[in-house]
């Protein structure tokens, strides 16, 4: 495929950057907040729940949903910027 200005390479790098950031958050809310640091976070409360427990049973799921929609928005913008979008 002709790619004069390394445009597609740049597009792919930016995509990877988004992935690293979003998956970093994914890891943080579930594995760090929900598991490894859950005990420490449990001294803080959200409503009647300990925070670490809440992340393991509620919070991480809400953030997963948000992460996907943010990714969709970022990628649709990126596709247009690099002119690789469909239709």
């Amino acid at each position, binding site marked *: 495929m002709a790619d004069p200005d390394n445009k597609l390479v740049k597009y792919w790098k930016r995509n990877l950057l988004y992935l690293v950031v979003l998956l970093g958050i994914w890891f943080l809310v579930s594995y760090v907040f*929900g*598991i490894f640091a859950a005990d420490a976070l449990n001294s803080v409360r959200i409503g*009647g*729940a300990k925070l670490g427990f809440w992340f393991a*049973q*509620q919070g*991480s799921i809400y953030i997963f949903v948000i992460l*996907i929609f943010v*990714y969709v928005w970022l990628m649709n913008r990126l596709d247009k910027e690099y002119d690789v979008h*469909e239709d």
Partner: protein
Amino acid sequence: MSVQTWTFIIVGLSFALYIGIAIWSRAASTKEFYVAGAGVHPVINGMATAADWMSAASFISMAGLISFMGYDGGVYLMGWTGGYVLLALLLAPYLRKFGKFTVPDFIGDRYYSNVARTVAVICAIIVSFTYVAGQMRGVGVVFSRFLEVPINTGVYIGMAIVFFYAVLGGMKGITYTQVAQYCVLIFAYMVPAIFISMAMTGHAIPQFGFLGKVNDGSGMFLLDKLDQLHHELGFAEYTDGSKKLIDVFAITFALMVGTAGLPHVIVRFFTVPRVKDARLSAGWALLFIAILYTTAPAVAAFARTNLITTVSNRPYSEMPEWFKNWEVTALLGWVDKNNDGIIQYVKGTALDGKGPVQAKENGVAVRGASGEIVVTNPKTDNPNELYIDQDIMVLANPEIAGLPAWVVALVAAGGLAAALSTAAGLLLVISTSLSHDLVKMQFRPDISEKAELWWARGGAAIAVMVAGYFGIHPPGFVAATVALAFGLAAASFFPAIILGIFDKRMNRQGAISGMVVGITLMLYYMLKYKLGKFGGGTPDDWWFGISPEGFGTVAMFVNMIISLVVSRLTPPPPENVQAIVEDIRIPRGAGGAQAH
């Protein structure tokens, strides 16, 4: 009207709806049969994916499981939702751009090898069959409890329904029935949850009720009250875990990665028209799933509190109707160890063996001094007197909360919708593996479109029969199968697909050796520590303290490392394959899924 009449009406109506949709959306071509013509709207596909994903286990067992596990139940909640983030970010858009019909299609083309394709087909079939057997059983169990027919009759009815719409409609029929099934199951889950949340905490939204105060005048938060009750009875605190952190991590990770590698989930993203629809569709799917998955822990906490306050230190004679109804089914059992007529429910295993074995005389249960059904299991020497099956929690919830008969019937229809929708999705993967990946791609490439469609229908028919057989004669490994299916998907597909997209240098040798070693290692660990083969072993012998459920994580990393090392020691993939990888990384140019 009685619960049973209501159940007949509601279940009957829902079945009529599924059949009506199947007739309306018959598949006329292989493209319609395999990927619903790749024209499904992303929101519709999200809903269908959610129904496909949420099985009888999610609907019936999960809240009960959490209610007994407390904090540790979070592994299922995070594990079965977090995988969608991986799907959306790492798999779905690229596989959609690739634009073929199946996961083995991708593996076979990307690794330019029919050996790789065959390994993938075998994995897809093993994963799907282990999973589908449990679904058919689930259909039978729901039928037998709510309509009082034998379990086997329930399995036959389930087979007939799935046969009808999977064989006739293929992916197109399945997609639109799954949308209807999602609506039925989410309504059936939410109605009792909302009623119970109102009754216990005064909040209409269960997710808020979970964080709220109990209505009993004590002014305590629900979770604090639950912790206190647990503390008094000698259980581990509800909001504290008892599993090792490393194991919690490994199980959660294996479930997430396994979710992203399950063929029946991946294939749903082939059905949308464009790459951006595949990304968006994963978001909708997770949103629809999250509605149930954030309600489940709330239901678990309500049910647990309700249960303890209802039964603990109360005389058997005061037990409500539901307690006695479930006692009859042997999913609940009480032994009055100290002969005081009062139920002691504390830490410990009440009975030896799997569940209560009821004493019978001429087919009638023998009653003890307090009127309880006598169980003959050997008594354990701890003071706990009560056995409760975790599956009761969701099914009995409406009765525990004193809800009207139609709500109880609704739960039956919801459980059936969850089981049937998942079974249909899995059966499609099996039938496609036979007709497309084996017959069309390997044995008879010149087969006509019409003949291939007949193979697909025939494959679906055979798959229904085999699934029904396993539903009626459940193999001994059924308890281990869910973990096995996820572990296998994690250890085989996930690394092969991810590396195929993100590592252009990955070649045939690397991918095949990785998949073979990954699966073998996973099977070995599973057989050894779950089924006692190869000398068996106790939890003390687990590698790094990781249970068989979490071992998919280890097997996945081993697969990745072997793939990477082997690929660097062998020649790079051909130019045209590298061009495929370049091509799937950009969205433009994704047409409909192409026939070969």
